């Protein structure tokens, strides 16, 4: 794949960016260039992020918040500086509002188990949408089962867009929390979250945004959005796996009971009484994923240096180009045709199961995701058992979109 001279009209130096991602130069499947289009599952990592983690283990490794010695101070300093980086990146008010988690899933579970168990009772209602990832469905189902509360689902139209009028109809004084994705991992739909948050607040509900697919593609300003919680994962925004962030408004986090007990989340422990630590440590029991958090900060610094708006413009260019080219293929149908989409293209090919498409593309070095994308109810809504999904990141090129189209023609050839 020649990425040379691919200076795009969106102002991104794609050649330079591709050089920052070592894995992209690695040939796969018998010497083929890797065409990585599975970015909604996880993104590849820039050298700057990898190097930062190596430096942490080479020069700074110690446990945080514990020791008086030099290394512990250094590690703690790096860890807490990362919190400041995250705070700035999403424009939170205070570091106290940034809780490090294992990922988006853990963030949502934390809210369901801590805030939810305290504030939700029998007959109360929780509202989510029909395009949620399983991680924003199951934690609420578990809570509903325990509390006798109800889970209400906002339907989507045939384009895969949330129907706002239906959303409004579901809101009532019984609505305790509204939780929905910033963008859909399965279809790419970008939800009108500002409007949805305002509507939910007007109904007196708390709001949680699953930002796993938001932070990598969209400018996020939690104060401007005025959401109560915003959860995201490091690995989907060029950081390491096993690390995530739960943003929560200080007043709400403060009133929540701790979730997991252990070290670091306490001020003092005796067998008679334990006093919990202040925010955000109250929610960070045990030794955290220090390298992950430091790596996340390096990834966010990398994104900031390029500029999320520049990245978004490039991804939108790829989305539109690839969509146009894919629709030229006979028998190909795109699932999810919302007016506002992140760079995700979910598709089906007449007569060929997505799993077979995935294998045949893989033989050509092209990585896409196939399956239900952890959104089985959504597959049911569109009456498909599964889809193929190509998702683009900042380092992808129009050449790679062409390679995907050529690959899909080979799929058709095999199945002809």
């Amino acid at each position, binding site marked *: 794949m020649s990425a040379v001279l691919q200076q795009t009209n969106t102002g991104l130096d794609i050649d330079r960016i591709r050089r920052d991602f070592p894995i992209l130069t690695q040939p796969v499947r018998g010497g083929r260039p890797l065409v990585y289009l599975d970015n909604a599952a996880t993104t590849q990592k820039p050298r700057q992020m990898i190097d930062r983690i190596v430096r942490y283990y080479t020069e700074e490794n110690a446990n945080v918040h514990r020791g008086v010695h030099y290394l512990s101070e250094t590690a703690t300093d790096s860890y807490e500086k990362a919190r400041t980086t995250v705070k700035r990146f999403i424009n939170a008010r205070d570091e106290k509002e940034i809780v490090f988690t294992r990922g988006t899933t853990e963030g949502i579970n934390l809210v369901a188990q801590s805030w939810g168990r305290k504030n939700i009772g029998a007959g109360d209602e929780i509202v989510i949408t029909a395009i949620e990832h399983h991680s924003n469905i199951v934690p609420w189902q578990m809570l509903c089962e325990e509390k006798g509360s109800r889970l209400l689902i906002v339907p989507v139209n045939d384009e895969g867009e949330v129907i706002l009028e239906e959303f409004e109809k579901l809101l009532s004084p019984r609505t305790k929390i509204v939780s929905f994705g910033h963008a859909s991992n399965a279809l790419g739909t970008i939800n009108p979250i500002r409007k949805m948050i305002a509507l939910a607040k007007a109904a007196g509900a708390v709001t949680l945004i699953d930002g796993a697919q938001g932070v990598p593609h969209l400018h996020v300003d939690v104060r401007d959005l005025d959401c109560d919680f915003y959860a995201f994962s490091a690995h989907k925004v060029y950081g390491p796996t096993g690390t995530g962030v739960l943003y929560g408004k200080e007043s709400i986090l403060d009133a929540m009971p701790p979730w997991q007990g252990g070290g670091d989340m306490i001020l003092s422990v005796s067998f008679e009484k334990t006093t919990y630590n202040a925010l955000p440590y109250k929610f960070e029991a045990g030794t955290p994923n220090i390298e992950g958090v430091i790596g996340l900060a390096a990834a966010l610094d990398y994104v900031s240096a390029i500029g999320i708006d520049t990245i978004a413009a490039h991804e939108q260019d790829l989305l539109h180009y690839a969509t146009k080219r894919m629709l030229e293929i006979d028998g190909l149908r795109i699932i999810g045709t919302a007016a506002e989409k992140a760079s995700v293209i979910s598709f089906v090919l007449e007569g060929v*199961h997505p799993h077979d498409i995935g294998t045949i593309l893989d033989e050509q070095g092209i990585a896409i995701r196939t399956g*239900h994308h952890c959104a089985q109810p959504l597959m049911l809504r569109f009456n498909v058992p599964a889809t193929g999904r190509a998702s683009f990141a900042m380092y992808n090129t129009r050449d790679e979109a062409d390679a995907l189209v050529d690959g899909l023609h080979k799929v058709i050839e095999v199945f002809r």
Partner: protein
Amino acid sequence: MSDLRELYQQVILDHNKNPRNFHELPNATKSVDGYNPLCGDHYKIYVEVEGDTIKDIGFTGNGCAISKASASVMSSSLKGKSTAEAHQLFDVFHKLVTGEPGSLSTAELGRLAAFSGVSEFPARVKCATLAWHTLNSALEGDKETVSTE
């Protein structure tokens, strides 16, 4: 592309397009659901067993070409066979798709030989064996659903 041709042999493409015994069995003595939660494949296998003999097999559901062709070939290979023969053939088939030595010759394998290419694609072994695992469970009669995970 040569490995791909090995995987998607004509027999597989044919059985995928025109699956045999692709229907419910009104006289089924047992039916079991088989799922591959990773890719969403789902089949229901129906068997009519009389004494020790598999009188009839049918299946419904959907999934990839490998899983559907496998269910189709399995159903036509096992009709009229004894349950012991079915277990034996599953063992042979499993060795074939995982690339373990000890399988029968191509002639002895018959239509099952079309799945020899699967062993080059470890990610697809579960697709090829889903129907067989499900049938196995139907014959053992111990479960209502089977999952590959």
